């Protein structure tokens, strides 16, 4: 499971100042990857930066044995990653983590904040949209960001979506949680069915922690089960160091730790102890 993957593509997409790259890896990871899982990539040979970098799997092509990743340059690590050329080998542990539940029927509401959309791409991709009705709500900084984060690909996937931007440059002006509230306030379910019969409506979300907390609250208020994909600083990526924990409330009401890299990154929104500070 220690995998050398070959770089098939690694290039800036969209506006340069958005710094978003598309990385395609050929190798073993694709064989067993599931939406919501991630790879833990070694970005260089030096000890500075020291650690691997976790990046979500945004697309899976089992036939071509390729996974697609989108990353935004955030610091030294992602910057070094941009310098890796096509055909070079990178060391990537993965696929890691548990991933999203994949519904085979009913309706799925996806809520994404910023680059949190990337793992949701792979979820959309594997869903049978004939059997599951999907709608994506996606909030971002502005139009430039959304377009750079491969908005076209989303359109190509052919799912229903609505976007919001902070500056109103595209879609609704405001937060994606506003979109979610509005969506659930209509008498119809997002995908057009009566809300009373919406027993099979579920939600999945990825984005900043504050947003996920709000999304969870809204979903639970509406009796919609919601899965959230969390981020946390990681060292090992495989459950050995206990660096990346998330605090959850067990069935017995007691606080417990779960490892974001192992039991996560996808958690049941309800179990996360959002306000725990222990």
């Amino acid at each position, binding site marked *: *499971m*220690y995998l050398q993957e070959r770089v098939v593509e690694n290039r800036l997409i969209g506006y340069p100042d958005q710094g978003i790259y598309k990385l395609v890896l050929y190798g073993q990871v694709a064989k067993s990857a599931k939406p919501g899982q991630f790879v833990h990539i*070694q970005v260089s040979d030096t*000890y*500075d*930066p*020291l*650690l*691997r970098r976790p990046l979500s799997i945004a697309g899976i092509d089992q036939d071509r044995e390729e996974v697609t990743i989108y990353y935004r340059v955030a610091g030294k690590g992602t910057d070094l990653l941009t310098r890796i050329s096509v055909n070079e080998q990178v*060391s990537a*542990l993965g696929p890691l983590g548990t991933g999203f539940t994949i519904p085979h029927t009913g309706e799925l509401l996806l809520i994404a904040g910023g680059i949190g959309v990337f793992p949701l791409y792979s979820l959309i991709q594997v869903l049978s949209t004939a059997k599951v009705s999907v709608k994506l709500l996606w909030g971002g900084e502005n139009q430039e960001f959304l377009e750079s984060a491969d908005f076209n690909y989303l359109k190509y996937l052919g799912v229903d979506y609505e976007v919001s931007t902070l500056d109103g440059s595209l879609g609704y002006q405001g937060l994606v949680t506003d979109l979610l509230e509005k969506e659930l306030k209509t008498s119809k379910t997002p995908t057009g069915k009566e809300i009373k019969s919406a027993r099979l409506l579920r939600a999945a979300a990825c984005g900043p922690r504050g947003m996920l907390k709000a999304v969870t609250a809204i979903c639970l208020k509406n009796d919609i089960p919601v899965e959230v994909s969390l981020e*946390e*600083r*990681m*060292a*090992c*990526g*495989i*459950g*050995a*160091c*206990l*660096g*990346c*924990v*998330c*605090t959850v409330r067990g069935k017995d009401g007691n*606080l*417990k*730790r779960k490892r974001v890299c*192992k039991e996560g990154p996808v958690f049941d929104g309800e179990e996360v102890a959002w306000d*725990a*500070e*222990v």
Partner: protein
Amino acid sequence: MQKFNGMQDFDFTTRLGDLILKNPVITSSGTYGFGEEYTDYCSPAYLGAITVKGITPLPRLGNPVPRLAETPSGLLNSVGLENPGLEDFLRSYLPKLSNLHTAVIVNISGFSLEDYALLASALQDYASPNNSTNITSNSSGIAALEVNISCPNIKHGGMAFGTNPKNAEEVIAVVRKNTNLPIIAKLSPNVTDIAEMAKAVESGGADIISLINTLLGMSIDIQTQKPILANKMGGLSGPAVRPVAVRMVYQVYQAVPLPIIGMGGLTTWQDAVEFMLAGASAVSVGTANFLNPLAPLEILSGLEEYCTQRGYNSIRKLVGLAHRTC
């Protein structure tokens, strides 16, 4: 899986007093979970021993996140001794550990002398049967206790046991009283005089010394203007600390006759050679596992090649060579 015992007559057997390991490569406490996490990448059966996460009498949630901060060639962590506690360790983890076909070292941590006494006597019942004559491996049970004395002593104002020779000696003596297992005293590097600490744990009855634990450090986020770690301070590990670790192994080798397990930033086989030349009889791989899950195996094959190229037929020939005067 890498091949690392190509030379049939190369003797990898490692003697740490009564603790005899099939080879000198161990994985460090807190960096290798409970032995199962890395099995996809590296079979623990190839290792000399694995050391489990520090166990305390009661379960601990540890510190809030963030628990990790990256620094130049280093890693700060403040996991805060999260662990399932003694009872659950014995019930849920130890049985599985016994299936890994390697020697199991249990790292114990306490906040009072009573904690250490309790842990030592409870774990004594699970001692591996054959710890003094055979190579400790393929055997169920515990091969040795590693006593983490870097924990704060709650009854003495939170000052770590491991920063005062008298306290360190006491902790080891208490453990000694409660176990026949080989005792590995794990020293903290946050001290003025590491040789003095080594002598103290020797007096306390330690059989083996392991070092170093992490260096106390801190990192501040200039955006939030607060320490990055929720716990403010944390332990520094990784290649950045290696020169300090090598120096301390060298000093302890000169100060006491006990066998040494060297660690601290050890990442490659070259680093393992460096620690053994400084005086370590075995080496332990910590943060390096996070960078490269194959690190322990690569270290094994590198050590063997280094030795055989120089005509050493046993790994033990390396130990302490840097102390030769000519």
